[in-house]
């Protein structure tokens, strides 16, 4: 089966510092793939590279077509929704405006309203916060808003950059539970970047472990959880 997303020999630079040294990852359609690694390993950079936010060398294909060198706006139009690190919320705008922006590419009103209701099905709390300025939400609510905004795009692939970052464990569990529901009910594939390897491997079906800009281990998430060597060497638990 042809993978939904595939990168081949992805390299990237920040100025003169090389951050990626030939990253090869694949995301299967309908699946959840975890991208694991320590701080500074190149996880966020890989997501940015896929979205055309940095200059890269190598090949990226989505649904069999090359998306390399395309501007971010055009990549988004293909159905790739990125929930970036720091969440990328428009903090000065209201929750409702953030969601409307999420559906910017399909601005027909009945559709937008229906999509918002669908999103509230996952995150009911946002409905009570509609008129509130997004910057005043709690961290957990902001993460929910970020995921909801991405969902409004009706994406085929979601890139999630550390959705657990800075959140209390209970809220993280709730968000990860909802992410699984979204994956199943919306048929959205996910590429999940996480520092919390245990959490990510529980959710994902496949995983790639990267270290200093290279993939060092790849395989099924279940195998990785059970592999003592991998766990000791890279996952630290």
């Amino acid at each position: 089966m042809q993978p939904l997303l595939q990168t081949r020999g992805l390299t990237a630079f920040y100025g003169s510092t090389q951050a990626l040294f030939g990253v090869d990852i694949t995301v299967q359609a309908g699946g959840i793939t975890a991208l694991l690694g320590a701080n500074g390993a190149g996880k966020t950079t890989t997501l940015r590279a896929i979205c055309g936010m940095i200059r890269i060398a190598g090949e990226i294909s989505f649904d069999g077509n090359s998306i390399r060198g395309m501007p971010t706006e055009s990549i988004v139009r293909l159905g790739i929704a990125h929930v970036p690190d720091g969440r990328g919320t428009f903090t000065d705008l209201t929750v409702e405006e953030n969601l409307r922006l999420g559906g910017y590419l399909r601005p027909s009103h009945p559709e937008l309203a229906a999509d918002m209701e669908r999103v509230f099905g996952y995150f009911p709390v946002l409905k009570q916060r509609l008129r509130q300025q997004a910057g005043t939400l709690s961290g957990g609510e902001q993460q929910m808003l970020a995921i909801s905004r991405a969902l409004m795009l009706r994406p085929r692939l979601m890139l999630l950059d550390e959705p657990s970052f800075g959140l209390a464990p209970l809220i993280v569990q709730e968000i990860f539970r909802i992410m699984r529901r979204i994956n199943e009910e919306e048929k959205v594939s996910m590429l999940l970047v996480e520092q919390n390897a245990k959490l990510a491997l529980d959710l994902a079906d496949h995983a790639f472990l990267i270290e200093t800009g290279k993939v060092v281990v790849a395989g099924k998430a279940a195998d990785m959880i059970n592999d003592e060597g991998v766990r000791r060497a890279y996952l630290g638990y």
Partner: protein
Amino acid sequence: MDLLIQQIFSGLATGSIYASLALALVMIFNSTNHINFAQGEMALISTYFAWTLIALGFPYWAAFPLTIVASFAFGVLVERLLIRSFHNAPHLSLVVVFIGLLLAFNALAGWIWGFLLKEFPSPVRNLNTGTPLIAAHELFVLCVTLGLLAVLYIFFRFTTLGLAMRAAALNPTSARLVGIRVGWMLALGWGLAGALGAVAGMLVAPIVYLDPSMMIGILLYAFASAMLGGLNNPAGAVAGGLIFGVVENLVGTYLIGHELKLTFALIVVIAVLLIRPAGLFGKVIVKRV
């Protein structure tokens, strides 16, 4: 008492012209952090364009909207063809570009249309408001600018495109991630600023006559208004313009005479920058370093 009311109305009228141009400055500042020093001269070219249309025999009410549309296109073109290439240039380079544009447009206007004062018509010149308190053109200016501000408010507050423009200005990276073509939003901002400037130019020209130096004073006032209200706050810039128009008129009439009005304006700017650097209604931006 009549004099006071007259001066207030006339101040509100000129103030609303400052407000329009100030809003044009704020619009570009909010999305790019640049102050377009050439905004006034772009408005000057627009006003000459309107003058030419009218001289060619177009009725005022055809020339007015045509000029607005042309000025919108002009603004978009300047951004797309020129400013865009300086996207990653340092701040100071752009300041030089803007000043270069100011001089170039000013010289261009003089070269094409000459340096003699030209009369610019007001559609309501011969009408009588029925009261000595406000002149017909002043009332016209107030109605047009307030109407325009209302339209802009509705556009930015309630339309998807307006929301997208705000999003692009607030957070370009996130805006791209929801599929907004940020580059085009900037160009649209330039277009709207150009259109606003054109209105300001066409409204002020019947009062001060049209010549290549017409907009320089107005730009300073607009700049002062934007500073007074807060460069990053559109409503503040409008309020700043209106406050400025009224206060300078009253100070000019009762205190220091009309010759020193511009000096007074600049003193106010310096005072505001000393006491409240973000302007009266501006948002203080705290940067983590």
